[in-house]
């Protein structure tokens, strides 16, 4: 029996250990994703293509995943992935990137890909800040929080990403935290089997750039905080706001035809045959 960690067969071993800070949540997300792949019966990542943008979360796939990866410009992975998916519809195209990348600079691509129901799985690792650049305020940073660019407290309010993407038209939306390992794996498995736009937000810890400024200096402190604040969507009350609780669960699960399907219909209509 091999004593090797199951995930190693999906990783470029020569690139390990990762460059992530001690306590970072990225490793948990990588682990959950690869566990989902393993449980679905894949032995390698050959049918997959990974696209990421700029930021710590974007490094999960590039260079660590032993797979094709397109490490793009800041904010644009969903747009790059859209072109790739349309060119190679037979591939399972996955975007894994951070909240600043996907919901900040790339927010426009996020909502339009959801509206278009583009056949992509997007995993957004939300650590509430721009971690790689030193902990600046971002589109998900909680109101009032002190960051390097909100030294007097954040005057803005955060996006509720899961609900944003749900209302934009995605086929599947879930939100979990790095504490919810098993439900996260299950949601990834479910999402991988669906077409159209699928979005999973994973609330994740950044002790280095974010946690220490809110008095939670370790990954463990932050994960404890996630656990205390999380409430399942089935138990949520209308009065609870995104800045008070972390609503977790599956927000939507529907089966509208994906964009690739629609494009194929058009080509079929025009040519009278399949391509």
């Amino acid at each position, binding site marked *: 029996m091999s004593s090797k960690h199951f995930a190693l067969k999906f990783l*470029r071993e020569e*690139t390990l250990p990762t460059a992530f800070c001690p306590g970072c949540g990225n490793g948990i997300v990588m682990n959950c994703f690869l566990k989902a792949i393993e449980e679905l019966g894949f032995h390698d990542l*050959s*049918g997959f*293509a990974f*696209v990421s943008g700029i930021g710590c979360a974007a490094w999960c796939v*590039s*260079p660590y995943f*032993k*797979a*094709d*990866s*397109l*490490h*793009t*410009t800041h904010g*644009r992975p969903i*747009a*790059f*992935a*859209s*072109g*790739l*998916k*349309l*060119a*190679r519809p*037979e*591939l399972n195209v996955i975007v894994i990137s951070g909240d600043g990348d996907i919901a900040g600079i790339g927010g*426009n*691509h996020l909502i*339009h890909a959801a509206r278009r129901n583009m056949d992509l799985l997007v995993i957004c690792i939300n650590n509430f800040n721009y971690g790689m650049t030193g902990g600046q305020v971002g589109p998900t940073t909680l109101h009032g929080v002190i960051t390097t660019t909100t030294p007097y407290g954040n005057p803005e309010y955060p996006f509720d990403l899961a609900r944003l993407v749900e209302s934009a038209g995605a086929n599947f939306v879930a939100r979990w935290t790095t504490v919810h390992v098993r439900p996260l794996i299950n949601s990834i498995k479910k999402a991988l089997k669906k077409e159209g736009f699928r979005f999973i937000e994973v609330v994740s810890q950044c002790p280095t750039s974010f946690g220490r400024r809110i008095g939670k200096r370790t990954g463990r402190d932050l994960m404890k905080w996630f656990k205390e604040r999380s409430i399942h969507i089935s138990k949520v009350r209308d009065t609870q706001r995104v800045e008070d609780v972390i609503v977790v669960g599956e927000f939507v699960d529907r089966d509208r035809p994906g964009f690739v399907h629609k*494009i194929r219909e*058009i*080509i079929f*209509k*025009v*040519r009278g045959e399949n*391509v």
Partner: protein
Amino acid sequence: MSERKNKEVLSGVHFWQGDIACAEGAIAAGCRFFAGYPITPASEIAEHMAKRLPEVGGIYVQMEDEIASISAVIGASWGGLKAMTATSGPGFSLMQENIGYACMTETPCVIVDVQRVGPSTGQATKAAQGDVMQARWGTHGDHEVIVLSPNSPQEMFDLTIKAFNLAEIYRVPVIVLSDEIVGHMWEKVRVPSPEEIEVYNRRKPSYIGEPIFGGVGEVGVPPMPRIGDGFNLLITGSTHNEYGYRKTVDPEVHRRLVTRIVNKIRKNADKIIDVETQDIEDADIGVISYGCTSRSVYDAVILAEEKGIKIGHVRLRTIWPFPEKVVRELAERVDFILVPEMNLGQLIYEVERVVGCEAHVKAISKIGGGEMITPEEILSEIRKLLGR
């Protein structure tokens, strides 16, 4: 089969708008992916692609903005398709960051810029030639792109094919720098038979593990696989070694990579450059032109001949890399070189750099309202300079 071929290459003589000819040139070159965003005066290219691409089994997608458009084009190119977008000044500005990404990752793609009056929103429906330097230097960092300048609907067709071929051969973004006049002009366009059209495709690696970002000497172009073919590709806009691994602090890796992606264009400039010359051997005066303005120079050549003046005309089909040799050749033969441009001076700086003290270089500039520089204006400037 023959019917299929007929849909891909519409052989015959057509009365086409420049923008339509551009779209048809792309399809004839094998373009099967277009992502774009509406903008005057380039929208007709997107509209024509939306109609035509499904007929040939290709993909048209209208993205949410120009940044997304060029991103999708690069993604599709790595998916193995020949891919294009078309825009005008404001959208071209938005695309610049990812044009740099395409340079750095050596991604073949074609960007059509149908120039309009800028800066900013400017005069959206009017022609200009104000993006010459943006096409060359719009993205940050050391890089080389190829920029072609058509002056007729026929050349919108021909040079778009050429743009795809150069993109595929050199793994580089190629810009078709058109303008509102050429883009909206209707003229006769002859589409050759498919057999007459030369089409090049990117070289594929011969084995898994072959370096695809180097390992080809100092001016070479490495092979390019598709995503999804088992290569475990690492594609990144960060500095990377020949296997794609990020090397963001190693000075040697950066020098090697960026010097090569610059030199693969610079050192092959003679093979890339395409110019048209008229009467430069025994010219009295030189004119260097490109795009719509060159059409006025053709007429000025005839008008000048009537006055007994011989214009040596160099018309640049390739703007970048800049055709230094022929410009220098012209400078050795004449005392004055005129550079008519629908801007306040862009290409003229490059002409001055190359000509040095060999000849006097003078601009004819006109901006606003899309008004062309007329043959009479060119002739009057020439007569002033020559004193006859």
